[in-house]
């Protein structure tokens, strides 16, 4: 009798873990297919392509020459640095703009209006990058709305060109990415108990102290998540810098696009892609290390 019950229990246990394993496999398969076929292998693919060196038409050799080429050509890495530097600048600006807005939405606005404000913040998301850039062009060009308004108001005598320079690019980028800063910020700060802030004041903290010692440290995961996303979006953006950029503006993705499309140089394009990926990963990793956060806990927070 005990033997029977023991063996029955064992089969029961096996059954249970078997169904558990089956469901695990069923759930894991789509994930694995997705990650493997659409992310990992393609990345390896361009990694491989970037190592193909073209010797003559239809003759290739395996090697690092594409990377040397990249290193030897200051334009390329200058473009990369420039892209990185503007991306950082945009990230910082987006944080500066986004933080007060997020704070307002999460902490100051009343419960009722919060959803509406949040929705308003999402306005730019409603239309594509293209339309937004298009709007900026109409707004900022020398004969555009803004310039005309200023003239009409008598503030300036001559039409001014507000388009086609780096400031425009930065502003346009901030515009496109700021809400990706706001969303994680709002969601972390939403989880913050108002009592923490009040306690900060109650114990004698000034506005600044409360902000620096309580609000910011608390919002850190959100800040980091926002910064990562924003930085990546900037570094990977194409339309805004191309459409709003001035005559000096080179953007790394534009460079990649050109290698692929105008120069038919897939090998170089793939190399650039790898470099950009490595570079941005490095930047993100550095950011995480510096702030002591990790990817899973920040980006996936909400």
């Amino acid at each position, binding site marked *: 009798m005990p033997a029977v019950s023991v063996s029955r229990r064992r089969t029961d246990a096996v059954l249970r873990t078997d169904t558990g394993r089956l469901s695990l496999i069923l759930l894991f398969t789509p994930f694995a297919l997705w990650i493997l076929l659409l992310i990992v292998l393609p990345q390896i693919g361009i990694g491989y392509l970037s190592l193909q060196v073209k010797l003559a038409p239809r003759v290739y050799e395996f090697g690092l020459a594409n990377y040397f080429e990249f290193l030897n050509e200051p334009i390329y890495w200058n473009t990369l640095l420039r892209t990185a530097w503007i991306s950082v600048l945009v990230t910082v600006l987006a944080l500066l703009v986004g933080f007060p807005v997020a704070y307002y939405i999460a902490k100051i606005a009343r419960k009722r209006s919060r959803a509406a404000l949040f929705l308003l913040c999402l306005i730019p998301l409603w239309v594509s990058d293209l339309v937004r850039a298009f709007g900026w062009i109409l707004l900022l060009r020398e004969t555009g709305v803004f310039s005309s308004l200023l003239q009409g108001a008598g503030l300036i005598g001559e039409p001014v060109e507000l388009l086609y320079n780096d400031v425009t690019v930065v502003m346009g980028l901030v515009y496109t990415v700021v809400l990706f800063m706001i969303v994680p910020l709002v969601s972390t700060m939403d989880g913050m108990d108002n*009592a923490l802030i009040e*306690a*900060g004041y*109650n*114990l*004698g903290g000034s506005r600044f*102290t409360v902000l620096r*010692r309580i609000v910011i440290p608390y919002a850190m995961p959100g800040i980091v998540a926002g910064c990562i996303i924003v930085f990546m979006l900037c570094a990977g953006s194409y339309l805004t810098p191309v459409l709003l950029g001035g005559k000096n503006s080179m953007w790394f993705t534009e460079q990649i696009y050109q290698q692929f499309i105008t120069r038919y140089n897939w090998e170089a394009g793939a190399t650039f892609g790898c470099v950009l990926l490595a570079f941005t990963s490095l930047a993100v990793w550095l950011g995480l290390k510096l702030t002591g956060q990790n990817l899973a806990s920040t980006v996936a927070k909400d």
Partner: protein
Amino acid sequence: MFDLQCDNLTKMFGAFCAVNDVSLEVPSGSFFSILGPSGCGKTTLMRMIAGFETPSGGDIRIKGQSVLSIGPNKRNVKMVFQHLALFPMMDVGENIAYGLRCRGDSKSEIKTRVAAVLDRIGLAGYEGKRISQLSGGQKQRVAIARCMVLEPDVLLLDEPLGALDLKLREHMKIELKQLQHQFNTTFLYITHDQSEALVMSDNVAVMNAGRFEQIGAPEDLYRAPSSAFVAGFVGDSNRWSGTVTALDRDQVKVGLDGGATLVAPLAGGSSGQGGGSSNTGRLSVGDTASVFVRPEALVVTPGLLPDAPDRNRLQGTIDSFLFNGANSRVLVRTSRGELIEVDHRLDGGLSRESVGQDVTLEWPHAGGICFKAED
């Protein structure tokens, strides 16, 4: 000398009056509680005192000085929040040092002060612990220490025990009272748990719907509630409603539906001395009135006894026993179907076997109290 005074304090949220013309005075070094049901305005009152809300009317004075124009970070009242609001990103030491840093104390001074206060709350050497590593009771103490290290004039506590579990809550009640003795600071304590308020306080204000119903020592509230609300809210009570059939000085005769008649002193009579708004008014014959009687004032006698002139008597049967150690109760079902709770002394003559037995409930006239029914 009063550490804290509120004069006719009022707070409106739009048309809704959350705190309505409240006045209180808290003597130095005393433990003052505000007791009231959820949503009655306790937190709003406390937030006004701390400076997070601006009163719509009235004045708040700390050590005699009006503080209405002083910002929340400048007032020398510190607050222990309901969920404590310890800063999760700082360790215990930093939490306690926070206020000192804001004040601009020197590093070495902060260090000694933090160590001293931790010692005092029995957590010496805990500076480096993270908040999440503390138990509920320890967090509680850190939250108090964080305020006390700043030597406030008044410490405000907003239901600080609400989040703790039962046994710990019992324990912390006594500990809080002792901490107050130790620091000798004025405590203003908010709770909706009457036993907390009664056990710890020197004075209790019972609040209802934005108003103070009564302010007094715990014993006074319990023995001489000045309103039906206080009688029902503070301590357990059995309650009967009926019609006034006769008035004799402060004694009221109330006729119940079933025909029985109860006699009870009118609240606010010679013994009542609550300072709040007594809404009993004057009773007259024919009014509806409620009689409250505490379970411990009732005596259960086996058998059906006839009415007696010097005491109230009601007949019923024993419905069940609620055994709870020293707090055991007998439930008696009266002939009119009500369930009456009676204190059951362990040494009493009733036992489980008595269920269903006919009994008579009796209590002296003075054992109850009568209020005009609100309508």
